[in-house]
């Protein structure tokens, strides 16, 4: 507790390029970029595979492979290959981390839509793309958003590794703190990361409430 008061009470930690607001922004920047890239890759792929049924094996294999991937190892490898100085070495492992949950949930969400519903949609005269975008996606949206939420939380928590290769973010407090035996800094950083993960969770709950139809979430008052 004292360490927390020490860390959060230090005015130096609230200003400048090593202050909490700046580090937080850096952290959010890596995380958001990585998540965005993962969404751009995984959502269309998941939709296509779920809708056509083609390449389902690919989803399973890539998801398992990516789960086994050591984020830190990948980071070090990429730094060795491209050198430090850009955010690319951090983004690649984070994207690799974020793609599987989004891909798997999007695929499962689309594939899991009731057969009768698909049948009715085609039977009404919707074309393949219309069936996907107007029926399957709205119905599968809770699962797709769940995949993004899992990915976002993992990314926010894992983006701390950026500090290992000399980049910023909240990881700096943790890693620098460990290196200098400044435990107040380490614990303060860890608490900040945890709070950020909670904030992400809350943000997705709100998005879910706005984006998912009340007919799907069944969040309508019974009259």
């Amino acid at each position, binding site marked *: 507790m004292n360490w927390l008061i020490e860390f959060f009470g230090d005015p130096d930690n609230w200003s400048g390029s090593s202050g909490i607001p700046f580090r937080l922004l850096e952290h959010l920047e890596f995380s958001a970029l990585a998540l965005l890239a993962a969404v751009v890759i995984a959502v269309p792929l998941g939709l296509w595979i779920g809708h056509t049924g083609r390449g389902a094996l690919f989803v399973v294999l890539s998801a398992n492979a990516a789960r086994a991937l050591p984020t830190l190892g990948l980071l070090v490898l990429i730094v060795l290959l491209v050198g430090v100085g850009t955010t690319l070495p951090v983004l690649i492992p984070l994207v690799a981390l974020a793609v599987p949950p989004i891909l798997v949930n999007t695929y499962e969400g689309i594939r899991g839509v*009731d057969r*009768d*519903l698909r*049948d*009715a*949609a*085609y*039977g*009404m*005269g*919707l*074309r393949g793309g*219309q069936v996907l975008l107007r*029926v399957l996606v*709205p*119905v599968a949206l809770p699962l797709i958003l769940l995949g993004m939420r899992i990915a976002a939380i993992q990314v926010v928590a894992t983006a701390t590794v950026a500090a290992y290769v000399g980049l910023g973010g909240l990881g700096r407090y943790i890693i620098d703190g460990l290196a200098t035996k400044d435990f107040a800094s380490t614990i303060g950083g860890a608490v900040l990361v945890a709070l950020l993960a909670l904030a992400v969770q809350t943000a997705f709950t709100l998005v879910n409430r706005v984006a998912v*139809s*009340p*007919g*799907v979430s*069944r969040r*309508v008052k*019974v*009259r």
Partner: protein
Amino acid sequence: MITFEGVTKRYADGTIAVNDLHLEVPTAEITVLVGPSGCGKTTSLRMINRMIDATEGKILLDGVDVRTIDPPTLRRGIGYVIQQAGLFPHRKIVDNVATVPYLLGWDKSKARARAMELLERVGLDTALAERYPFQLSGGQQQRVGVARALAADPPVLLMDEPFSAVDPIVRTSLQDELLRLQSDLHKTIVFVTHDIDEAVKLGDRVAVLRVGGTLAQVADPATLLSAPADDFVREFLGRDRGIRRLSFVPADLPLRTDLTVPDDADISKVAGVAAASGLTWLAVVDSGGRPSGWVNAADLPLSGTVADLRLMPYGTFVAGRDSLRSALDAALLAPSGGAIAVDDEGRVTGVATAGALAAATSGIAAEGVGTGRG
């Protein structure tokens, strides 16, 4: 008119779902495809709107081969109702009904107005329009499914076991509703069911299919019941064919008007009416002309009025509208063996005697002889 010309559906593994089907579905009639599971009835239906494509043969829609029409375009011109309704859960009821009008590019307010009109038409409260499917009962959802199929006013309606997932009471009301709608709309309807009673109730024509996808018999329901083509059809039709067939025979019975007495008549008058008619069972009629019961003139006290007597139970049928089955049912409720005929307001118009009913039913049986066994 929909015409199946030698249509066969064979799957890659060699399974034959439909085998060389020749069938005509007349315009503005309900044609029911019925048969046990595996008889290819649903496959046949789904080949009409190209949810499945035939392997051989042709399906003509008013002379045009459906294979020459792009499937989504074809389907927008054909109403489609499926078993679980298949409503879009994320859309409000009104927007579900307006699905095809939206696809056809109708103006949004026009499409919604049309949807509201259809909700009323299928017997739903328009207050349901702003709800979501999960807030409706199974029967209500099925009505919405019918409204959705009718939204763009297609001439053809395909119904794939639409009422089989709801309870029997709701099913009966949905069936009655469909018949009522059809009497206004005159759509060309192909209706698939495994329930022969439903087939016989709804169909203008019934096509019985057997396992392996071959057609066993096509006929109007009365012919089907009186003259099944073979043992398969006879067995599929099940028990009580004779009595069920009477549903299709109008109750054109000779009515006697000399067998009624007012409910305040004197005993002596009752005896007089009975003596004049030569029959002992008389129908008692109240001052409003409605039936009160039967009285047996062979078992009268010496004095008093009809009001003092214990009246026997009775049944009625509407002359000129009900079937012979209804008349017979009415007769079976009464110890007299006769049925009281009433008009639409329930006023007695005459009495069909036990003898008249016996003559009518034996006449029907005689017609069936030679065209069917058992």
